[in-house]
């Protein structure tokens, strides 16, 4: 079977979704449900950012849908006054896929966590991303199982002492961004729960992208993994030395005085960090989210150390690629245009015979 040119339209992530002229506020997006996260949970900050950012999209609220799996973060849909489904562990991408394919007029979000998306739902995550279904996936990564009360997760560091690993965990953790880039993700970004401005900026870009937008959000779980991200969450010079913010079209630089830069690695392989003074400004890599080849984005994902010595944030990659749902709808449209939908003819088929009375 040969590949065919699907002739897909190049659209934005929110095209075909009905908009409203009515002014909306965060309050419009707030449901009447009492929030049941622990005090101080990073989920509150993300919820506030999402409630704050949704009104600016100007979409009709009834055309926004949040689908989640199971876990602390998956309670998210209950707190938004949109359509929503709190489904089953790991399966949210599948449900969102069926919805997005059949309903181009909806803006579909998936809210998931590190256990939900990367452990039990790993298969669904990579396949939704591979298909590039028009979804925005928000993965709240707190590097722990919260709802089940504190077992290590697929993003916990090796040696983590938890209830299920009294002598330390043995599993090597996933780097979620490396994983999704390997799965051909067309939009990849990372944000930190505490940095509302940057989180909002990433959310904006993610929803504008047509295809699967994958956003990893470092989220603090003060109950079971307290302070896991403190070194980058608390701001100040400590954070500046660690966080490498990405801006499309700009040299990738960071540091208290912007004194470090990201440069190509030895022999052209990978990336490394160097003092700009030592390598010269021209050697610093200029960030391009639209590079068709994902190698640089992948190398950037590898620059983020699990111990947060360096953490890259912002949009890693944003490229155009045909989406599964647009393709599926196009095939239906073409079939409708070229074939008859005569049920009687279908049921009769081509070989009939008649029995007379």
């Amino acid at each position: 079977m040969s590949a065919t040119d699907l002739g897909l339209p190049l659209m934005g992530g929110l095209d075909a979704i009905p908009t409203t002229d009515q002014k909306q506020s965060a309050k419009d997006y707030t449901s009447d449900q009492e929030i049941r996260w622990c005090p101080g949970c990073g989920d509150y900050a993300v919820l506030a950012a999402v409630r704050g950012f949704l009104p600016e999209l100007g979409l009709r609220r009834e055309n926004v849908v949040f689908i989640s799996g199971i876990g602390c973060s998956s309670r998210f849909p209950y707190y938004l006054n949109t359509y929503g489904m709190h489904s089953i562990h790991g399966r949210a991408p599948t449900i969102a896929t069926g919805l997005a394919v059949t309903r181009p007029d909806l803006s579909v979000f998936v809210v998931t966590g590190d256990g939900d998306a990367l452990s039990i739902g790993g298969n669904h995550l990579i396949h939704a991303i591979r298909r590039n279904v028009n979804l925005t996936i928000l993965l709240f990564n707190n590097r722990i199982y919260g709802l089940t009360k504190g077992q290590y997760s697929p993003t916990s560091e090796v040696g983590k002492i938890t209830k299920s690993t009294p002598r330390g965990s043995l599993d090597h953790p996933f780097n979620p961004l490396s994983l999704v880039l390997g799965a051909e993700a067309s939009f990849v970004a990372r944000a930190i729960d505490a940095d509302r401005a940057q989180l909002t900026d990433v959310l904006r870009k993610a929803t504008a992208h047509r295809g699967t937008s994958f956003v990893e959000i470092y989220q603090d779980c003060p109950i079971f993994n307290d302070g896991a991200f403190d070194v980058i969450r608390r701001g100040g010079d400590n954070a500046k030395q660690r966080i490498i913010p990405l801006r499309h079209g700009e040299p990738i630089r960071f540091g208290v005085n912007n004194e470090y830069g990201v440069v190509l690695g030895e022999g052209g392989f990978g990336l490394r960090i160097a003092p700009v003074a030592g390598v010269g400004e021209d050697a610093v890599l200029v960030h391009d989210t639209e590079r068709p080849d994902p190698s640089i984005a992948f190398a950037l994902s590898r620059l983020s150390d699990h111990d947060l010595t360096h953490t890259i944030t912002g949009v890693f990659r944003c490229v155009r690629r045909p989406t599964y749902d647009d393709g599926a709808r196009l095939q239906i449209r073409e079939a409708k245009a070229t074939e008859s939908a005569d049920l009687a003819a279908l049921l009769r088929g081509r070989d009939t015979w008649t029995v007379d009375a």
Partner: protein
Amino acid sequence: MTISDSAITVQPGAAKSSNGAIEHSREVLKRSCVVIRFAGDSGDGMQLTGDRFSSAAAAFGNDLATMPNFPAEIRAPAGTLPGVSSFQLHFADHDILTAGDQPDVLVAMNPAALKANIADLPPGGILVANSDEFTKRNLTKVGYPANPLEDGSLCAYTVHSVAMETLARGALEHTELSKKDASRSKNMFALGLLCWMYHRPTEGTERYLREKFVRRPDLAEANILAFRAGWNYGETTETFAVTYEVSPAKLDAGTYRQITGNTALAYGIVAAGQRSGLPVFLGSYPITPASDILHELSKHKAFNVTTFQAEDEISGIGAAIGAAFGGAFGVTTTSGPGISLKSEAAGLAVALELPLLIIDVQRGGPSTGLPTKTEQSDLLQAMFGRNGECPLPIVAPRSPTDCFDAALDATRIAITYRTPVILLSDGSLANGSEPWKVPAVESLPPIEPGFATAPNAPDGSGEFWPYQRDDDTLARPWAVPGTAGLEHRIGGLEKADGRGSISYDPDNHDHMVRLRQAKVDGITVPGLEVDDPDGHAELLVLGWGSTFGAIGAGCRQVRAHGLAIAQAHLRHLNPLPANLADLLHNYRTVLVPEMNLGQLALLLRSRFLIDVKSYTKVSGLPFKAEELRNVFIDALKGDLL
């Protein structure tokens, strides 16, 4: 079969059939029914050959039923017993119920096919063997010390030893075809020969071959040449002294076609989409023998049918649930272990109370089991195989053509009651075929989605309550995203009755568990009809699913002995028809034959406190009519169990 073949009239000389217009210069024997089994290597094209002969029989106006039987391996080692693939078809001048217990004619394309099938051929039966394949090497492979075609060991049968490969190749001598391709057309030679023997029309097959090989006209012509060579071989050689004629059956007036269960299910789904006005979304993962439903539906995009080949079984049902949430008619199809993988999401669909059709084409289990064989062993899983109290309706078609009606019926229940429905087909229905009286589209029941459009809170608050139920059906409203003012959140957590918000209240949970059960229990299903022609039978045979034909044929045989026996067949396994309890009590003995270890019997015993007798077989093959007849007679004598 039930009606003997004794009614034979001999017509000397040429015969001209009423609508086949095939003239023969041989003695013609009339038969009321014939069972042919084509058997060969998996690579020999036996399924296609059988299918073509069936089409020819159907086009001629016979009633017919077919039973393919093939290995799970696509190409098991050539010439071995595990690699044998067969296709049995039964065609008749009257209405028949099964594909026949045993063949009258066995076509064996190689020694392995002969060895695997000869035990089923009754003495006096006709064997047509492809002698080319009976080489020393092939004979040794399957443990024949000598060539059975020559050593007299087959003297109980009428043996026609035909060098099909040589003859087919000879017919193709003047074509450009490679020797290999020419040899491969031997199945068409066999088909041509059998069509000649049984006066089958040839145009349909020739047209079919031209269409199938539209991009390879050379192959089309070669196959047609081989097909004609087989026909001519019968006509010109003296080997075959007689030919047979089976007159058209007297079926109800109407337009007929031949259809398999899987195709009928697919058409039922398309029709349900059209009659409900909903887009159809199928989420499915390939698995034998359910995949053909996916294949078929993927061809019908013009009917607003989207097919999604998911990454796994779970995603297949998950995507269908997502589509249903969005207001589409969500369907998922599977078989074998696939239904186990879907259990979790099926439970979610029960909690969400969204319409969903789950098709399980049952096959031999446990685990991977027997992928290409049939069984009825998923009934209890369909009933109970989810965590928690998780009831859902179950519908089971009784024949390949009934798959169409069952799909529509299951959709009606799913949409009316906002519930997932499991449709239990099985391997024999999936691949078996029979003539189908094509229904008029207008006669198909309309299905009303009845989407919610306005807030419904009984307290007049103007809110939308997603679990506020309809008084009659107990169904909740189906409010799809995009409907302003009805924004709501649903999920797998227990919900407060009415309002639908999360609730851990003990009384509410007890209430909701009972409500979900009451909703399923209250589904309207037609009363069960009993076939009890004498009206005084003391034995009721109660079946479900694909055993209908064999049970019916067995009952006919019993009645032919002058004995009274009643038959009833369940389409609705959950809820059961309301009149079932009374019915069961009307008979001294209730016998339940099943292709499992007595799953329906278990349900009936616990539900109605009746000691139903259970007859079971789990061989991967359908019941035979004669086998059941004997069981029924034993039951009538009181000898059973």
